[in-house]
Structures are given as structure tokens and as C-alpha cells.
């Protein structure tokens, strides 16, 4: 009980770390989704070189530990391109976005594969343009299918983000360790970080379920 109280008392000290985690993961998620859409578009383009390169990209990203990617971008790339010091914050955003884009593109691909057959032909036969077809017919059906898995991927990014404390980003995890070093309390700050991560990821899962309900409302399937 004492530890729980102590943990909760430590929460305010971690808020700036929480803000950094939120910023990095928020930006990375948005960029990842944009990247995922581009990857899916490239895969569907039918252009052999394009299809091949994004397939290799996705395979690489899915097989590479995030920490290696982060080190490559933070230590390797500046050395290779003679960039000097790079921003740890933006390396964090880009690394998570690159990784997230690969996984989210697989989610989108799966959702597209689950669309009822004949929707594309039905739209084209009515004279819809390709843009209208995607905007009016396909995307509204893809979203409710993809949303829970996309939310899961965002949760995954948040859980991967502590790796950035290895490259000096003062995120929630790093901040909790700093507090430990100042207070000599090994448990309280960690418990506080636990609570904050838990609330963050929990609220994303909750928001996705709420949105999913809204998107499918009135639709008896």
C-alpha cells in the first residue's frame, strides 16, 4: 500500500516525460499511417520494381529489432552521411514511423482483402472514378475493419518507445529512471510509469472500440 501511494505521488514528476512519449508516438503513428497508405498503394500499383521494393522494405522492417533500427539511424546514418549530431527526438519519431508503417500496411492490406467481393466493379459500373470509389465505397468499409488492429499497432509503438531512452530521449521511461537516481527510490517511479503507460494504452484501446461502434452504427451485418 505504501508503495502504491508513493508511486502515485511520483506521477507529477514524470509528466514532462509523458509529454515527450505522447509527442513522439503521436507523430510517429500519423506518419506511419501515411506511410502505410503509400506502401499499400505501391503494392497495388502493379509496377514490378515498386512492388518489389516495398515488399523488401516491409519484410526488412518486420524482421529488424527496433533498437537496431534506432541505432542505425542515430549512430550509423550520421557517420555514413557525415551529418554530425542529429536530433534524438526526430530520430525516434522516424524510427517508430518507419517500423509502424510496415506493420500498419499489413493491417490495411488484410482489411482490403476482407472487403466483400464486387465492390470495385459495382462502383466502376456506376461510373465512379477511382478516387470516388476509394473515398465513397472502399475506405468507409475498410476503416471499421482495420481500426482495432491499427489501434493495436499504436499500442505496440508506445510499448516500443522506451528503446529511445537509449539514445538520450527523455521519455516516460527515462524520466522515471532520472527520478530514481535523484530520490534513491527504485520502485515508486517505475510504478508511476507503469500506471501512466497503462492509462495511455488502455485509453487508446477504449477509444478504438468507441470509434468502431460509431463507424458501424446501424449496420446489421
Amino acid at each position, binding site marked *: 500500500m505504501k508503495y502504491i501511494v508513493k508511486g502515485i505521488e511520483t506521477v507529477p514528476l514524470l509528466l514532462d516525460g509523458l509529454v515527450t512519449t505522447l509527442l513522439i508516438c503521436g507523430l510517429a503513428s500519423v506518419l506511419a499511417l501515411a506511410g502505410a497508405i503509400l506502401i499499400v498503394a505501391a503494392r497495388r500499383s502493379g509496377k514490378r520494381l515498386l512492388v518489389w521494393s516495398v515488399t523488401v522494405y516491409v519484410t526488412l522492417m518486420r524482421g529488424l529489432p527496433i533498437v537496431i533500427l534506432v541505432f542505425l539511424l542515430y549512430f550509423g546514418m550520421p557517420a555514413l552521411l557525415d551529418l554530425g549530431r542529429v536530433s534524438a527526438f526526430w530520430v525516434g519519431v522516424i524510427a517508430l514511423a518507419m517500423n509502424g508503417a510496415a506493420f500498419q500496411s499489413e493491417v490495411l492490406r488484410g482489411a482490403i482483402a476482407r472487403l466483400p467481393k464486387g*465492390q470495385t466493379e459495382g462502383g466502376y*459500373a456506376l461510373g*465512379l472514378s477511382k478516387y470516388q470509389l476509394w473515398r465513397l*465505397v472502399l475506405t468507409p468499409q475498410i476503416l471499421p475493419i482495420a481500426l482495432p488492429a491499427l489501434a493495436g499497432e499504436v499500442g505496440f509503438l508506445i510499448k516500443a518507445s522506451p528503446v529511445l531512452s537509449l539514445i538520450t530521449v527523455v521519455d516516460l521511461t527515462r524520466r522515471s529512471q532520472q527520478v530514481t537516481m535523484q530520490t534513491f527510490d527504485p520502485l515508486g517511479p517505475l510504478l508511476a510509469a507503469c500506471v501512466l503507460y497503462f492509462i495511455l494504452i488502455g485509453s487508446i484501446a477504449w477509444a478504438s472500440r468507441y470509434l468502431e461502434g460509431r463507424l458501424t452504427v446501424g449496420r446489421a451485418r
Partner: protein
Amino acid sequence: MQSATQQPESKAHDIAVSLCQVSKWFGAFKVLQDINLEVRTGERIVIAGPSGSGKSTMIRCINWLERHQKGKIVVDGIELTDNNKNVDAVRRDVGMVFQHFNLFPHLTIIENCTLAPMWVKKVPQSLARDTALEYLEKVRIADQAHKYPSQLSGGQQQRVAIARALCMKPKVLLFDEPTSALDPEMVREVLDSMVQLAKDGMTMLCVTHEMGFARQVADRVIFMDRGEIIEENAPTEFFANPQHERTKAFLSQIVH
């Protein structure tokens, strides 16, 4: 609303659809072999033949859902080429009813019917709704306008699909086995709607196995086998007096 079914006066548009020496391959397999077909405005054509004979592929070429590789297809004076403008123009003029309806499950019945008129033809919403209700009334399903497709039976969904196609006021309607996916007791209601359309003078090309429908409304029955049109005739002649051996064999199997 008769405008969709009125026959144009001008002589040039007397031919609604024309296929000239049209060929198509799936890989090395030739699905369409030098197809020649002219459909006059207002004509009702039933296309019959064994499965795999190319009949669906042929009508799907008419609205560019499939591309022909040789020959010439002209719809209402517009030739189908790689030119997107022509394809769009043809698709605006040609409606299609599919075997599996292909309604949009995330939209209500009325929204299914107003989507294309509003976005493709830029019809104002209120006018599009009026038109949609009129056609839904015509296929006797206006009372379901605010339901979703999944709440309707197969026969009802197919009638909605017919109304949805009509809302674009097409000059030609293509039917790709419209009753093949239906429970037997729902075939009648869909055929009734199609007969009504035929009576209104709609230019129709129907791929179907419903030979009763062919007898009742068709001006011409076309028999296809292995990618070729091997026989065509008025329905009475076609059924009473088939010329080709393969037609005879097919009819003996399908007509009891």
C-alpha cells in the same frame, strides 16, 4: 420518369451497342473469338450458353470491366479505347446488374441509389432522392429505402440493384446472371422487374439461364459456346428449331 427509356430519334444512334471482330485472351486461352454483334436501341437480347462460353466476359467488355484485346466496341457512338474519357462516358450510359448484386453494405438502400447520380452526374441530393424513390417504387421496394442491404432478402437486394442502375438513367442495361445467386422462390420477383423494364423499351443484354424469360421478352436469343456466337435467332425459332448441334445439346439439357 420516361426519359431513361425513351428511344433516341437520330439514325446514328439506332445502334446502341456494336461489337466488331472482338477478341480477348486470358493468357493463352482465347475467351472471345471474333465476336460480331449489333444491338439496336430498344432491343432485348438474351445470351445463353454453357458456363465458360464467354458470355459474361462479352457483356463485361461492354462497360470496360474487362478489356478486349482485338476488334472494336462502340456504345452509343462512343468507341471504347484506353481513353479514360470515353470509358467514363460509356459507363455513365451503361448500367449493370450483377449476379451477386454488389450493393454497398455501408450505405442504406436510398444512399446506394443516390450515390452515383450525386457524385458522377452532380444531381442535387433532393432530386436524386426523388428519382431513387421513383425507381424503388417501380421495383416495388420503396418501403425499404432506409434499411441496409444486409437487412433485405436476396431478391429484394437484386431489385434494389436494378433500381440503382436505373437511377443513372442508362441507355443500355447489362444483366450478368441476375437470378443465378437467388433462392428459387425469389427468382420470380426479379424477373418480373426485368419484364417490366423490357416492356418500357429499355435496351437490354441479359446473360441468363431463364429460358422462360427469353421466350417472354427477348427479341433475339444469342447462343455462345467456346468464345463464339454460334447461333442467333428470334426466341420462337431458336427454341423450336435450333440449327447447330451444340445448341440442340444445350437446349436438351436446360429446357425440360
